């Protein structure tokens, strides 16, 4: 974009210096306040013992990390399925051809019903109910059907996010693409979808972070993942620190992911756009 020179450069530099100082001072003040004032509160010892117990933390952590592998696995195989199903539903819902009318009705029913019932209910209904119909091991595994419940539920929410993205792409983009001889599907694939998806990455990320935690719901139907393990430790040692440890493990994964996504979006934005109004 070119370097800033002259009188604006000096002004910008001074302004930047000032804001760095203000940011540093205010951050230090907040951190100091927390570190100094919180321990002075009347029942801090009890809270410290119950929630921030170093020994319990160290003792539980290996078990929690081991259990967390299951959460990661569930997320890893559910995510792609959710995105694929959601895209399929959104595109079908958005289609204009008369032949696909019954499919469109189906997608509306699907999103209404899946979103209308709490996820926990779906986990029980699908996780216990479907295998209960008489499927044999290993195909009746709660991991499979619990994941199916997660995928069906989350895809219904994310389909609506994609749909909003697709509908936000102006009709004129379709007009231009079709005028170039591109088919309906080519238009969707090369022109509409790329724009639609870029636009809905923030809400998509939201749902993704949500999923990273909702994978824990599979514990309701048996598998011992991190939250269940933390609960078992909590019951056994009558201490809540295992939950704090589990929270720490979750944050360790979710924060880098969201920061990376933001960075990717920002990089894309810098690449494709011109000026930015301050």
């Amino acid at each position, binding site marked *: 974009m070119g370097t800033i020179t002259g009188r604006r450069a000096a002004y910008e530099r001074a302004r930047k210096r000032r804001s760095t100082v203000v940011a540093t001072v205010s951050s230090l003040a907040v951190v100091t306040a927390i570190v100094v004032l919180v321990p002075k509160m009347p029942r801090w010892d009890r809270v410290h013992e*119950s929630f921030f117990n170093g020994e319990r933390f160290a003792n539980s952590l290996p078990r929690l990390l081991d259990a967390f592998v299951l959460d990661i696995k569930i997320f890893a195989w559910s995510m792609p399925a959710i995105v694929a199903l959601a895209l399929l539903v959104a595109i079908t819902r958005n289609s204009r051809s008369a032949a696909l009318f019954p499919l469109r009705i189906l997608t509306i029913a699907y999103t209404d019903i899946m979103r209308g019932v709490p996820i926990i209910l779906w986990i*029980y209904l699908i996780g*216990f109910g479907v*295998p*209960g119909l008489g*499927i*044999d*091991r290993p195909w*009746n*595994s*709660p991991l499979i059907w619990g994941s199916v419940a997660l995928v069906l539920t989350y895809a219904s929410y994310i389909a609506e996010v994609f749909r909003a993205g697709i509908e936000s792409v102006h009709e004129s983009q379709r007009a231009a693409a079709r005028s170039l001889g591109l088919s309906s599907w080519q238009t969707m694939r090369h022109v509409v979808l790329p724009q639609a998806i870029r636009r809905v990455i923030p809400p998509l990320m939201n749902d993704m972070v949500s999923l990273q935690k909702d994978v824990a719901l599979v*514990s*309701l*139907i*048996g*598998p*011992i993942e991190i939250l*269940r393990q933390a*609960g*078992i430790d909590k*019951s*056994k*040692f*009558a201490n809540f620190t295992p939950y704090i440890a589990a929270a720490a493990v979750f944050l360790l994964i979710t924060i880098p992911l969201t920061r990376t996504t933001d960075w990717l979006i920002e990089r894309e934005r810098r690449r494709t756009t011109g000026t930015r109004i301050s």
Partner: protein
Amino acid sequence: MRKLTISLAVTGTLLLAACGGSSSSSDTTAAAGAGTGNECTAGKTLTADTLTIGTGNPAYSPWVENDKPESKEGFEAAVAYAVAAELGFGDAAVKWVRTGFDEAVQPGKKNFDFNLQQFSINDERKKTVSFSASYYSTNQAVVALAGSPAIGATTVADLKDVKFGAQAGTTSLEFITNVIKPTAEPFAYDDNAGAKAALEAKQIDAIVVDLPTAFYIAAVELTGASVVGQFPASASTTPDNFGLVFDLDNPLVSCVDTALAALKDAGTLAAIEKTWLSDKTNAPVIAVS
């Protein structure tokens, strides 16, 4: 006119005092509805003149029948009322509250005087709550459906490849992990209902629960289920002795222990056991070593 009023008032007060006086004697037989505790319990209960007892939501058979502890039917319901009577509380002075299994043994103020839900006495729980003396002891047992690989097991080795399930936070789950040590990690559920659903869906091969519950599940709740066997009390480091759960260092504990001792000596506890759990102790023993 005023004289009449005064004398009526005095007579009324005397009558009330007489009535109140007679029921606060140390008569410990449960005159239904009349008792409100004895000298030991005075001032130690949550609410004066009331015994607040906690149990599960729902409360399962054979511990409480029909989820109605007030009916006094079911082993634990019967024990609770027997203890209450021994402490001088009439039936009308007993109040029930429901709690989750887990929350009753967590630290913090309780909304009950004591709670009974098949809580096993162990050292870890003793750090946060107090227990009475044991009112019942039992063994861990295995329940499975016909056709399960667990059927016919006579030693722990026979159970190594079995997929187990149990309620999270219980000694049953710990028993699986520490004693049976199967090759596949067990599944854990919020309650036994989840474990039963998983058993029926064949997601697990067997459930571990205490013996009376095992019999109830096999006989009543699940068709085609049977008790595979029970483990000897020596198998686990902390055999299952059920105790009543109290607030930590609650002074009421000693009163209740006295009552329990009296009930044991009089044979009342054994009689209650015979009524509600009698035929539920014959299961083959699964050897541990």
